[in-house]
């Protein structure tokens, strides 16, 4: 078996059991009593409505999950799409929601345990709470140590549960007395939605499948089936169980008890049946609590990776290899909630927080679809955008039917998450949401990050990416990048893109990982050393891909580079037919500023920048300015005019323009030159004294013209010095995006 197969070992059944196992614990075994109290037999309809709301979100979660099978699930999608502020809210909400839900499941477990072994009342704690605390501590302990057997037991539990419940429904049907359902809506139809709000905690579980998406076999197929399938399965079971239970015992009898299932079972299956159902209740609530604790540590990890929480929390235990701090901390919260809360308020608080996450998740889907960020789900929701819109509206809408206390409590947690964002997460987060990129890209005028010092006030995040290919050009490119990064107070992100031929599957490419790693390791190590001589922070990585150029653009976008340094593109590598099509699409929007380096030695002693002014030359001049600051280079700004009469005007313009950009024109080693003649000839002549020629792009798009061969290669080939071509970040206008 390959590593890939070994790492991804969750099949469809395992995935389904995570969903079904988490959900079934609560709805059937804990809530019939309180729910019957609120609405009577019609509560079956509440379960169907709850299932419907969940189904919209399940479809959206499936689409997002197949596009991004990452640990952390819903948190990850929201953070990725909507950015770290919403990411913090979703992550914290999901985490706290799971802690509330776990406390609720543990309380359910406690009341079933109390049926078996009458538990003592300790001070203010009810016997159910005592049982819950014992159970909670036990589940946390099991996860702390990381017994791998728990997972396998879970599969067994869920299958037994479905079996037991099937028998239970069947037996209840035989005893059912439809006349008991005559008073179907004793509290009126208005009670249906508040009852839905109460029982919604029964549906928290399907999204948990996405938190382990990275471990699923064939997630493209199994994830949607498991997520959507588990919602459908539990909805059917819930509705059937509710109707049949209330056809056996009157709803007002059921409303009096915490373990209604057991009372019904006693009637239809006798004392043995009742014991089996108690046992099932223990298993079900235990599996729900266990799965929730497990899921919460995944969310912590995903948040830690995005730097929204300290990595201290995600430290792996030396011996157990478990995220022990995350589990202990969540465990502490669970025990606290058990001590303070009651079944209903815990259930609702857990639901409100989850509903917020679900609503955001649906919004995240819409953002991903509307943006042009890389996004390739293999499952797509039907009737877009109706499904995610309904998912968002119904999720947020159901919150309105909760009690004020729970809404206020959850509001407090959301507020807490926002405060956390401003005091911690926002400063550390290194990812920007797709939404933000979308908003920025739709601005008509591209900002030049390199030229203006206000565009990136902190400077902290200024990221210069270097795409390395060959060892020979590594030093020059890294030096260029480091000099700029140093002056901008930013960092260098060196990436080695290894291109494997189309015929080689990436999987097989990955098998040669060791060889690639060795070559890459050496290249990146020298890159690191070279960058460190400049004293700039440096990060290195390797990307294996079929598509060199596309990958470059994607990586620049994903790493949120401000500036990318690439080697001279060799047009010979392109078969004309393919190149044009691909590059045409690509270069219509550049994800960041680009510098293309023709390396004839990194010598910055005398930089020549030919310019005709205008925003497009700004990048090349500001790069020259930064290099000058780093290396005290001599700088020549050159403007070429066709005839003598324009000389005066040109000089005036050049002077004013250079001042605007912040070049010290009075300085000894800055020359402003206006020459008359043919542009190419003049540049060539002037370049004889220069060590580096910095060319700006023109309207047409430099990369594209270069690759399609329309740029005059002559200049570059005729001069002897190194050449840097600069092209600014560019976006297609909003109109072009819509009508293009």
């Amino acid at each position, binding site marked *: 078996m390959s590593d890939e197969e070994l790492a991804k070992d969750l099949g469809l059944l*395992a995935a389904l059991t995570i969903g079904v196992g988490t959900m079934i614990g609560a709805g059937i075994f804990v809530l019939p009593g309180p729910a019957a109290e609120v609405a009577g037999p019609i509560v079956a309809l509440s379960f169907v409505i709850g299932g419907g709301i969940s189904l919209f979100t399940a479809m959206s979660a499936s689409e997002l999950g197949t596009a991004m099978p990452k640990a952390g699930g819903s948190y990850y999608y929201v953070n990725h799409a909507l950015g770290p502020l919403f990411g913090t809210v979703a992550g914290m909400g999901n985490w706290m929601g799971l802690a509330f839900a776990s406390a609720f499941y543990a309380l359910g477990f406690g009341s079933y345990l109390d049926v078996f072994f009458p538990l003592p009342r300790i001070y203010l704690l009810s016997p159910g709470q005592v049982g819950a605390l014992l159970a909670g501590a036990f589940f946390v302990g099991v996860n702390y140590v990381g017994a*791998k057997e728990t997972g396998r037991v879970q599969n067994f539990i869920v299958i037994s549960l479905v079996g037991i419940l099937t028998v239970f429904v069947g037996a209840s049907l035989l005893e059912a007395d439809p006349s008991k359902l005559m008073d179907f809506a004793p509290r009126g139809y208005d009670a249906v939605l508040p009852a839905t709000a109460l029982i919604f905690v029964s549906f928290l579980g399907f999204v948990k499948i996405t938190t382990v998406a990275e471990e699923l076999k064939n997630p493209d197929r199994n994830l949607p089936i498991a997520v959507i399938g588990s919602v459908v399965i539990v909805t059917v079971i819930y509705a059937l169980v509710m109707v049949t239970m209330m056809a056996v015992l009157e709803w007002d009898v059921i409303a009096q008890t915490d373990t209604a299932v057991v009372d019904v079972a006693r009637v239809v299956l006798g004392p043995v049946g009742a014991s089996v159902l108690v046992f099932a209740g223990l298993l079900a609530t235990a599996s729900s609590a266990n799965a929730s604790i497990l899921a919460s540590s995944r969310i912590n990890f995903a948040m830690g990776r995005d730097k929204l929480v300290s990595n201290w929390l995600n430290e792996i235990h030396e011996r157990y290899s478990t995220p022990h701090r995350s589990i202990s901390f969540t465990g502490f919260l669970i025990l606290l909630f058990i001590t303070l809360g009651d079944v209903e308020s815990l259930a609702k608080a857990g639901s409100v927080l989850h509903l917020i996450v679900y609503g955001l998740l649906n919004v995240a889907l819409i953002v991903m679809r509307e943006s042009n960020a890389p996004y390739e789900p293999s499952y797509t929701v039907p009737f877009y955008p109706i499904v995610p819109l309904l998912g968002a509206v119904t999720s947020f809408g159901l919150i309105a039917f909760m009690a004020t206390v729970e809404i206020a409590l959850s509001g407090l947690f959301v507020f807490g998450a926002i405060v956390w964002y401003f005091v911690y997460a926002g400063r550390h987060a290194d990812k920007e949401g797709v939404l933000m990129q979308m908003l920025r890209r739709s601005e008509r005028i591209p900002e030049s990050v390199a030229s203006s010092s206000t565009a990136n006030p902190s400077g902290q995040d200024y990221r210069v990416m270097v795409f390395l290919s060959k060892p020979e050009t590594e030093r020059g490119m890294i030096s260029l990048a480091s000099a700029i990064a140093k002056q901008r107070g930013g960092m260098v992100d060196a990436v080695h893109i290894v291109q494997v031929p189309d015929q080689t599957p990436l999987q097989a490419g990955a098998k040669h990982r060791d060889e690639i790693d060795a070559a890459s390791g050496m290249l990146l190590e020298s890159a690191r050393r070279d960058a460190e001589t400049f004293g700039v922070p440096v990060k290195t990585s390797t990307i294996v891909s079929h598509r060199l150029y596309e990958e470059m653009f994607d990586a620049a976008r994903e790493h949120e580079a401000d500036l990318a340094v690439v080697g001279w593109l060799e047009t010979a590598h392109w078969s004309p037919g393919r190149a044009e099509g691909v590059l045409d699409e690509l270069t219509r929007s550049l994800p960041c500023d680009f510098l293309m380096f023709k390396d004839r030695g990194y010598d910055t002693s005398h930089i020549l920048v030919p310019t005709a002014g205008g925003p497009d030359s700004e990048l090349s001049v500001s790069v020259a300015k930064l290099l000058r600051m780093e290396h005290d280079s001599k700088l020549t700004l050159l403007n070429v005019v066709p005839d003598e009469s324009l000389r005066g005007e040109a000089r005036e313009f050049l002077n004013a323009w250079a001042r605007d950009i912040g070049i010290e024109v009075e300085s000894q080693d800055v020359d402003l030159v206006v020459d008359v003649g043919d542009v190419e000839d003049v540049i060539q002549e002037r370049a004889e004294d220069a060590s580096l020629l910095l060319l700006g792009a023109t309207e047409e798009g430099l990369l594209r013209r270069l690759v399609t061969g329309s740029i005059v290669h002559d200049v570059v080939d005729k001069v002897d010095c190194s050449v840097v071509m600069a092209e600014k970040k560019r976006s297609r206008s909003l109109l072009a995006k819509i009508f293009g």
Partner: protein
Amino acid sequence: MRVVVDLSDRLMDTIVVPVGGKDDAISTSESLLPYLDETTHVIVVYVVEKAGGAPDKASVEQREEYAEDLFGLIERKFMEEGRDPPESKVLYGTDVPEAVFGFADEAGASSVVFVPRSSGLLDRTLTGDVAYSLITENNIPVVVLPSRDT
């Protein structure tokens, strides 16, 4: 007739060294380095323990990152001693010794070298006695190095 084989040469030809945690990575490097020949090919491995069809105790990505941290620690120890960094590899398996020996076999290793971690009865009961399994379930020679802190 007796055939005398000098095991010591061959044992340290290509070695697979499993590590389980940060402290273990450091103490293993310290114990291992004095025994290495110039030519010993060292492959450090970390096993991501899988539940085999159920959710794991920790995220796979999380433990892969953890493995990289461990490898980094070892690399530094090696470089401090003026050696080239060892090769490293993340393995996956439901059973740690099985994954280690399976890989060692594939890599044509001459031995598996490890430093047992001192552990109490409770830990051994909870996590299984990996050290014991390593020396009893092997298909190639196993070298047990003394821990330097004892």
